């Protein structure tokens, strides 16, 4: 995304309030062509800032974009002066969007670049906790993270002596450890954190508790309490148990903590009355995730929210398609971590809600009431 003048079409960077070609004030951010050429590079060996001082030497360069502007950028190690590069904005450890230049073509082990990994939360080589191994999404997430090169995947299972479907996918597998965790139980979360809290680089919160119904078709608050206990208070238990150590370990060498992932219903953004109370519990979790993001940011740990429409699981049986396959959610977790993203929308329903919310929020509210 770069600014482009609506009057004369010139691209501008750094961000500004008037077009340097024609002085127009109409500078909208648009998807810009990503190609450029590396004009010159340098390696900062004695940065003045403590963050970069610890990570020096740090390589940067000046890129002339094919679409016009020149951009100071972080450089992938395989970038060569004079050669084409592809630019993207990445979120750095402080949460700021920064320009990153990669070689135009693929190079061997491209994603393992030291400076690139500083901008992302790639699960490769990292240790991950998936909080609920009883769910299909949890099991798919474990498989996808393992396939992406995670060193160890801890899988939380409540009352692990009780058998469950898919158990054989988790037990006795190289690099997968089943651990006891009931997120809705404060003591359970604290006990597990005491055991493995210092080894969790990425936490994937797959807690799900889906029940249909809104307000008037339910009697009393017992189901709502369960929704809050499992989703909202469960989130708090996990955050309080694992968050402090993750925040402290954000710069803990190559095995640093990197990200916290939430899987949220897209109806956290706009209430779906058919699952109205559930939507509200998800909205509470979304709000809490912004709080967690702010509190983890000083440690350089990202919070990524995945928004999904109804997933193809038993609690959404009555909902017509399109539904999101649990495997698609799992793959989105991996690709979001690899890109260092803060938000992802998985599936057609989630994407549609995102667009309709941006276009006309009142219309969306009315139309969801069907």
């Amino acid at each position, binding site marked *: 995304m770069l600014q482009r003048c609506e009057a004369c079409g010139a691209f501008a960077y750094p961000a500004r309030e008037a077009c340097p070609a024609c002085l127009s004030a109409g500078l909208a951010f648009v998807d810009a062509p990503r190609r450029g050429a590396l*004009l010159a590079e340098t390696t*900062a060996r*004695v940065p003045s*800032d403590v963050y970069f001082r610890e990570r020096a030497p740090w390589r*940067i360069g000046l890129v002339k974009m094919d679409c016009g502007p020149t951009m*100071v950028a972080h450089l992938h190690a395989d970038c060569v002066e004079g050669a084409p590069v592809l630019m993207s904005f990445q979120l750095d450890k402080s949460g700021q969007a920064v320009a990153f230049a990669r070689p135009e073509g693929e190079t061997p082990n491209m994603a393992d670049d030291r400076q690139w990994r500083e901008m992302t939360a790639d699960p490769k080589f990292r240790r991950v906790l998936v909080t609920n191994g009883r769910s299909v999404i949890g099991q798919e997430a474990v498989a996808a993270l393992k396939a992406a090169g995670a060193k160890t995947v801890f899988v939380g299972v409540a009352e692990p002596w009780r058998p469950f479907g898919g158990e054989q996918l988790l037990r006795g597998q190289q690099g997968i450890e089943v651990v006891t965790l009931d997120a809705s139980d404060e003591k359970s979360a604290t006990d597990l954190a005491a055991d493995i809290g210092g080894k969790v680089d990425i936490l994937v919160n797959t807690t799900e508790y889906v029940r249909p119904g809104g307000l008037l078709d339910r009697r009393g608050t017992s189901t709502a309490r369960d929704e809050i206990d499992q989703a909202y208070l469960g989130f708090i238990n996990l955050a309080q148990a694992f968050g402090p150590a993750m925040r402290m370990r954000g710069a803990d060498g190559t095995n640093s903590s990197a990200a916290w992932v939430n899987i949220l219903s897209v109806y956290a953004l706009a209430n779906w009355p058919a699952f109205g109370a559930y939507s509200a519990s998800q909205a509470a979790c979304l709000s809490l995730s912004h709080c967690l993001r702010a509190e983890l940011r000083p440690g350089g740990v990202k919070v990524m929210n995945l928004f999904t429409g109804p997933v193809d699981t038993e609690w959404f049986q009555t909902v017509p398609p399109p539904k999101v396959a649990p495997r698609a959610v799992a793959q989105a977790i991996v690709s979001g971590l690899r890109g260092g993203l803060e938000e992802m929308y998985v599936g057609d329903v989630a994407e549609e809600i995102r667009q309709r919310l941006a276009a006309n929020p009142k219309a969306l509210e009315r139309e969801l009431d069907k």
Partner: protein
Amino acid sequence: MRNSLRTPYDGIVMAAPVTIPYARYSIESAQWWIGRALSALVARAGIKASDIDGLCVSSFTMGTDSGIGLTQHLGLCVRWLDTIPLGGASAIAALRKAARAVQAHDADIVACVAGDTNHVDSFRLTLENFSRFNQDAVYPYGAGGANASFALIARNYMRTYGVTREDVGRIAVTQRANALRNPHALMKTPLTIEQYLAARPISDPIHLFDCVMPCAGAEAFLVMRDDTAASLGLPAARLLSTIERHNAFADDPMQLRGGWAMDVGELYAMAGVKPDDLDTVQTYDDYPVITMMQFEDLGFCNKGEGAAFVRQHDLTIDGDFPHNTSGGQLSVGQAGAAGAYLGLVEGLRQVLGEAGPTQVKGAKLGLASGFGMINYDRGLASGAVIFAGPGR
């Protein structure tokens, strides 16, 4: 012969060049340093503070103060006031404005002063808050500061024209030789080309002796008409010509030339002199490669011949091209905005015959240049001035 359409600086002079000796770190404020400079100006010129009716100030570390706050702080009552935030181009911009003010009788005696303090953390804070573009689009990229930004420019320049570190190093080494004769220079030990080449890398190809040392200090001079100077009995240097340019050559993908290249013909035409006529040259040496660029852009050689020029000339005080005779910022230190004044103030001392241990014998005609404000990817501001001592 008139070669310029601009109004000549008839009878405009500069007097009383003063330098408050620099300190690596200072617990005093910028206002303290500026106060010392004004006090020295008054003493040097034999005037009262109340005789100063114009003031022009530059500083990075005055906090929320500008020139207006200083009038009350220092007890000055002026009828002409300016604050110039142009970094390394501040001295020349200040001089240009002050000259026209006294020429038009808007003021009679203008004090041009720059001063900065350097607390233990001042430099990092200045880097972090330098400009909006810098905050958004430079500082988050490794926080290498000006060193990293100029490293990119230097690397591109050196590659384009086949310049070696040894070529660039000659500038730093000869300036150190000059500085050893200046008792106020912060650098007091000799520097050999071997030491220069062996220095530790800071941001390739910038190494330690390509960098200036941030410090505290102040510089100042007075601008007035020649009749005022005569009535005060003050030796003064005549202002012959100036140029100033901002955001030149914006279409160059990277900086290979500064704004001087756009106006250099005007500079010499207005002064009525040629580059060969100059007795001393004081360039803005935040990095020696920028000095090499100025040798080209100020007409001492063609573009791309800066390295050959440096190889063919002796840049020391007693050499055939006396350059940055005080040692320049590279060896004296960079006292913030006072760095913009260092060359001009030394140049004035040279043509007035007041330079003492660094005096170039018989220097009458001087040039000083300025360069500043690496707002994003290049230095935006440039300027130059030619001036003559008494008897020329």
